[in-house]
């Protein structure tokens, strides 16, 4: 279960498996400038500074150009992290607009970390459910 770290503030958000960056951030109480949420308008592009992600749908080449496929451009509404990722917004910062949701996400992250640590201690590997 990957996490998204927001550069430069360092906030860490826990994602559910298969969840997009945009969906994860909004569910954790954050907001930034987004548009159609379906990969068509290109408004929600961010930069991925580290980690791997893939797109869960075909993306139009007018939305993500060929050069943007490997320059760290991340269409956040369609990008599903495969590893922990670090992202940086373009020309704005995320705004924490809902502390309640943020608290819930924080607890989910702590629980996932505790489970992962317990699995390492007991020598078992995490199994996909």
């Amino acid at each position, binding site marked *: 279960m990957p996490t998204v770290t927001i550069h430069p503030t360092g906030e860490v958000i826990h994602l559910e498996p298969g969840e997009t960056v945009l969906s994860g951030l909004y569910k954790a109480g954050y907001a930034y*400038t*987004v*548009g*159609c*949420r*379906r*990969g*068509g*308008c290109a*408004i929600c592009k961010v930069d991925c500074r580290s980690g791997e992600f893939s797109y869960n*749908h*075909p*993306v*139009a*080449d*007018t*939305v993500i150009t060929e050069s943007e496929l490997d320059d760290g451009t991340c269409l956040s509404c369609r990008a599903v992290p495969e590893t922990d990722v670090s992202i940086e917004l373009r020309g704005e910062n995320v705004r924490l607009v809902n502390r309640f949701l943020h608290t819930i996400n924080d607890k989910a992250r702590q629980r996932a970390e505790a489970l992962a640590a317990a699995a390492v201690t007991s020598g078992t590997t995490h199994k996909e459910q």
Partner: protein
Amino acid sequence: MAVMRLGYAHVRVTDMAEAKDHYANTLGLYETLSEGNKAYYKAWDEWDHHSVVLEEGGVGLVKYGWKVQYSSDIDEIEKKAQAFGVTVERMSKGDNPEIGDGIRFTTPSDHVFEVYHAATLVGTEVGTHNPDAFPRHLVGVGVPALDHSLITAEDPGLMDRFLGDVFGFYATERVQTSLDDDADIIATWMTNSTQIHQLAVLAGPQGKLHHFAFRLGDWTEVGRAADLFSMDDVPIDVGPTRHGITRGQTVYFFDPSGNRNEVFAGGYLAYPDRPMHVWTPDALGKGVFYHARELNDAFTSVLT
């Protein structure tokens, strides 16, 4: 009357299976043909073969089709478009399935328009002989018809003149920089019938789609559509709300590729001799979204 209506909107979709699910099962359009990477749809109260064409690959607009009343209207529009300085090409029957001969040109706003007179008559879902009020087994929203579209152009004033000169459209409402005679046109709502708008043009990039809209009957139907969008996880952009401009009731939402759709009800009757409504920038928020009275960021920035 030359142009009768917006006959079809042809758009690109990134994923055909998801798009078909949206247009057929959420909006309730009927698939009339699926061929290669394209699928053709009509709404229940439409009689021509199709009003929406989906083409897999990419996102945004391919073209619009405008249906004229008489075949001679095609020649007249061709001459008027050429007189405006636009290059017009002929299209043949079968270039578009079930659509006859016509013309094709690119507007000053870089949108592709086709003008045609003949389309295969499929018939409405209630027929013409002692018809019932609506089909009993509508799916989802069950929209009756395609209604209008909004496009963006660098010079909406130029498009206002173009649609007036070539299609005989008139503006029912405009957003202008001021009330002065030489004010710039920021947006224009145009028609040539009593329908409040058939095509609107908003200042923005060339060749882009803001939305295409389906007709509904009233507030209740608009509210029910919004309920269905929640059931089907369709992203709602704005609404349900009312437009100050046109007075229509609306929900803006996105198809699974990010093309903006609208369901639109109401709007007052337009007449060429009715004094045009003019909106100035200080009231633009109220003009577009009558209740929130603020333009959201997405309204002017999210285009496909």
